[in-house]
């Protein structure tokens, strides 16, 4: 993917002239205070809502299944099992055969939910539900994965574990990831690049490269380089929020 450019101004000016291009295989975090239009931007990229002005171009195949989306809530169908939920993209595409079932099984394994294939969402913890949601987004092997504050509602321990899982899954297949968050530490740990956004109207105020070595693990979190990047990102965020006052 190269060259996503957007300029828009909705009625309430959620986003004002956002210019952004994301390269294929990049892990980009959109970081900003609540209500800065991060989620709106993500939905425009997904094609779920139209931009009121400007254009969003995706240089990837726009066929169904090429984009995966993970919401802040797991957004599962409570009447369906883990496998049933993960098979949803295939069910909508109209064909579920041996290949699709194998891919769903692989997705279940990839997020560490083996043994829970036939469990219903109510039987799972919050973290496990989020894993199902991620597995559903990954099952079509998307080129672009959009995540909208997926771990915001989870406890710290689960969140760290899922951070590592997400990095591993990204390293394996290298989809382009756009990750919305309001956590400085999470964005610095996960991404290769961070776009900091201002609030009302949302625009991108800073664009920082994160040149921490890969793969990242627990040692990364305590390294001085990580601390330095967190400080830079914090400063950029403080500046972004200062401009709105």
């Amino acid at each position, binding site marked *: 993917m190269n060259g996503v450019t957007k300029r828009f101004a909705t009625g309430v000016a959620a986003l004002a002239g956002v210019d952004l291009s994301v390269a294929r295989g990049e892990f980009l975090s959109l970081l900003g205070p609540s209500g800065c239009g991060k989620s709106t931007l993500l*939905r425009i990229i*997904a*094609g*779920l809502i139209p931009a009121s002005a400007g254009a969003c171009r995706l240089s990837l195949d726009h*066929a*169904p*299944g090429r*984009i995966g*989306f993970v*919401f802040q*809530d797991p*957004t599962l*169908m*409570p*009447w*369906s099992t883990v496998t049933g939920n993960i098979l*949803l*993209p295939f*069910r*909508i*595409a109209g064909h579920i055969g041996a290949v699709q079932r194998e891919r769903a099984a692989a997705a279940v394994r990839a997020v560490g939910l083996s043994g829970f294939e036939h469990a*219903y*969402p*109510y039987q799972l913890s919050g973290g496990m539900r989020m894993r199902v949601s991620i597995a559903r987004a990954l099952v*079509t092997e998307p080129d672009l994965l959009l995540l909208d504050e997926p771990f915001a509602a989870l406890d710290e321990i689960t969140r760290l574990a899922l951070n590592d899982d997400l990095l591993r899954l990204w390293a394996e297949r290298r989809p382009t990831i756009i990750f919305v968050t309001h956590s400085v530490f999470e964005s610095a740990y996960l991404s290769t690049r961070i776009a900091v956004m201002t609030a009302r109207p949302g625009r991108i105020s800073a664009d920082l490269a994160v040149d921490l070595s890969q793969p990242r693990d627990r040692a990364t979190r305590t390294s001085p380089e990580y601390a330095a990047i967190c400080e830079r990102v914090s400063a950029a965020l403080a500046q972004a929020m200062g401009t709105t006052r």
Partner: protein
Amino acid sequence: MNRRLERIAAPLGVGFLFLALWQAATHLFGVPVYILPAPSDIAQSLWTDGPSLMGSLLVTLRITLAALAAAALGGGSIALVFSLSRVIEISFFPYAVILQVTPIVAIAPLIIIWVHTPFLALLTCAWIVAFFPIVSNTTVGLNSADRNLLALFRLYGASRWQALWLLRVPTALPYFLAGLRISGGLALIGAVVAEFVAGTGGAETGLAYRILEAGYRLAIPRLFAALFLLSVTGIVIYLVLDFISRRLLRNWHESATPEEE
């Protein structure tokens, strides 16, 4: 287990106590049987008139169940049509409300004049009373699908029909079943009211008419016996529908999944 026993034993205890007091009071004050029969008189009447009352119960039950089935089918279909077209919903919903708020006792004589087959006339009355909770509940349910799931369906290129069958209909199921439980009782009420208005519909007489008849003849124990059968029928209908609802929702809906301790 103990709590379960409590839930059954406690109301039963209250019932027995009430019956005992009733029995004692009728004897103590010498209340004549044509004013208030003792529970023992009613039990005896239930025994002697039981077979003929059961025959009448069957007539009423047939109307009730047919009306409930028609309400489930008709109400569900109407709600589906409403969910497919906003214009149709806002155009017709007020008329469903009008049909609901007009007392059935007031419309029943008209329906009995217009519909010549007694069974169909009674069925229509009971249906009018029973269908609204299903329509209104199911309509709400069909419109309650998770917004993010709807977005996800769009993202994966789902058609309108797929969103309906795979998402809206399952979402609406608990709402529909809640409506159905209300309608079960209403269908019985509708059938009884219609029978009251219609009187005896030819060879077959329902339980409601037997109550009227017993009243005219001052056969008060039989009246109570018929009343008792009606109540039991209503309770059984509710329990059956509740059971069906729990079975269908047991794997996922909060109303039917076990509570966390």
